[in-house]
């Protein structure tokens, strides 16, 4: 089963998104902040990470950088989720190594499309 790590500090958003993703057949692991995300990337070994960038102590950007810096987790595709469709956010997500980018509130079908595309791409890169 495909496993996603959902990094999100807001409980409602976490619950909502995870329920809808589980219904789509994904297995979901959670991280509530940046450090948990970095640790979760190692311990859960997810196929893909959904990263909210507006986290408390450690921003989603920093967590992404840390995950990408670790060879064991560097290959996990990461989709950044931000509140605004700002050009600077888009640029930053590419800089830190995210493979895609979406805005919140999520348009669920669109997000699903991005998740599938990223998974296919990651599989191709590995083989």
């Amino acid at each position, binding site marked *: 089963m495909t496993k996603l790590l959902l990094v999100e500090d*807001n409980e*409602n*958003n976490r619950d*909502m*998104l995870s*329920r*809808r993703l589980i*219904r789509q057949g994904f297995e979901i692991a959670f991280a509530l902040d940046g450090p948990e995300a970095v640790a979760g990337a190692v311990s859960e070994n997810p196929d893909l990470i959904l990263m909210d960038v507006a986290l408390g102590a450690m921003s989603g950007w920093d967590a992404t950088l840390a995950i990408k810096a670790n*060879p064991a987790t*560097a*290959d996990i595709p990461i989709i950044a989720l931000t*509140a605004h*469709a*700002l*050009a*600077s956010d*888009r640029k930053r997500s590419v800089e830190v*190594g995210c493979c895609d980018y979406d805005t*919140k*509130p*999520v348009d*669920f079908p669109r997000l699903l499309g991005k998740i599938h595309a990223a998974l296919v791409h990651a599989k191709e*890169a*590995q083989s």
Partner: protein
Amino acid sequence: MALSNYLDQLTRFSDWFIPADLAANREQREKARLFLYSHICGPFIGGSVPLTIWLFDETTDFRVVTLFASIFGFWIFPPLLKMFGRYYLLSIVSVQNLIFCILWSCYFYGGLSSPMVAWVLVIPLLSFMYVGSSARMRGVLIGQFLVNGLIYYTLCNWFTSPAVTMTTGALEALGIVSTIAACAYVTMMALLYATALASQVELQSEVDRHLATAADLLSATEDARRSSTAKSDFIARMSHELRTPLNAIIGYSEILLDDSEGDPVETRDLNRIREAGKHLLKLVNRILDLSRIEAGRMEKSSEWIDCGQLAQGVVDDLAPAAAKHGDKIICTVEPGLGLVSTDAHKLKQIVGNLVENAVQYTRDGEIVVSVSRAESGRDDALRIAVRDKGPGIAADRLPHLLNNFDVLDDDKGSADSGGAGLGLPLARRLCELIGANISIESKVGQGTVASVWLPRGGAATLGEEGDFGLAPPQQDIDALASLGAAMRATQAQRSRVNDQAAVG
């Protein structure tokens, strides 16, 4: 009262002699006025001295005639000033004439004990008044005094002072007249100078008052600007806070819709919650965008896009909403338009707002979105027009539409207006941001045309005539190429890590 009248008349008379270039500068004009006052009035006062000599001295000869001539010679100076300008040169010549008058009369009428010695004081007083603050001219004057003093001293040493032909009584009378005249003269000049100074001080304080007012205005403007930024900041923050619970409302209603067993009433109610949530989110987003623009924090990006595709995308997105009103949206794109460089996201928002607005006010009609080359004669590259056959907008409302947060006064409540009151002002501000022009034409009963013009160069560039379908410029290709190279390098690095992991 009478005195000030005379003074005004004197001033008017003097001013007639002041050349235009001197009159233009306030300091020059004041100096020239004092110069003219003393030259016009001076001979009347100074003339009393040779007159007294002529009356009391039994021998009337060249001495008193020369004195008369040189004193009334001062009257030549005003016309000379009027004719030739050359103020400083005339001042030096005039001072020289004054020194000559005084030393001449002293020499012939009593030497160092002459009743005319008092007049010596007038020389520096007048001279320095004439030249004002010019350091060079002050130096020239001091040199002039020294040379004159030296010449006079030498002459007195070589030739003994001639015997005075006047009686002691006559000399006493001359002494009295001369002293009174000198006093009157100095008094007159001091009064005139004081008057000029007072008006100068008044002017200065007026200037100071204006400067203070300007400073007050500046700080008030600064305060207003700061408080406006603070307000926009607050709205931006609040809007952001509002989005989080809205996300939950929309998201959970969607989950419930997924779960619903197909009960039509439940589905309808859930749809209403979701639609109302989305509507509210749209309003909040618009407020957020407006406040971001006003706080100067709206970002701008630029990329090469196909405007036809963009318009088609907007039409596709809004077709379902239009269908609810029985409207049909048609998108027409002039072929061969090529690419433009602009902020695609903002342009999409702009066109989206215009189309939404058209949809809100059209029932069972047709909305045409057309992308075409701008009319020749306009300094723009491309026009995106949104035409509807809605009720139209009265001419007096049109100018306000893009500026104020208006909603047309129709029987539809604001709940159904889709935030149209925010849509057009937001579209206008977004256009300003990306350097596009926006206009709305409308006729009541006939419909409305809203147009966005993307300018040539700068924010948007279109291929030259005959070269439509132009590729992005070289630097963009280069940027893409280097981005591709960087991505390939990362990919290669990752593969190596994988290989190592596989080996290990």
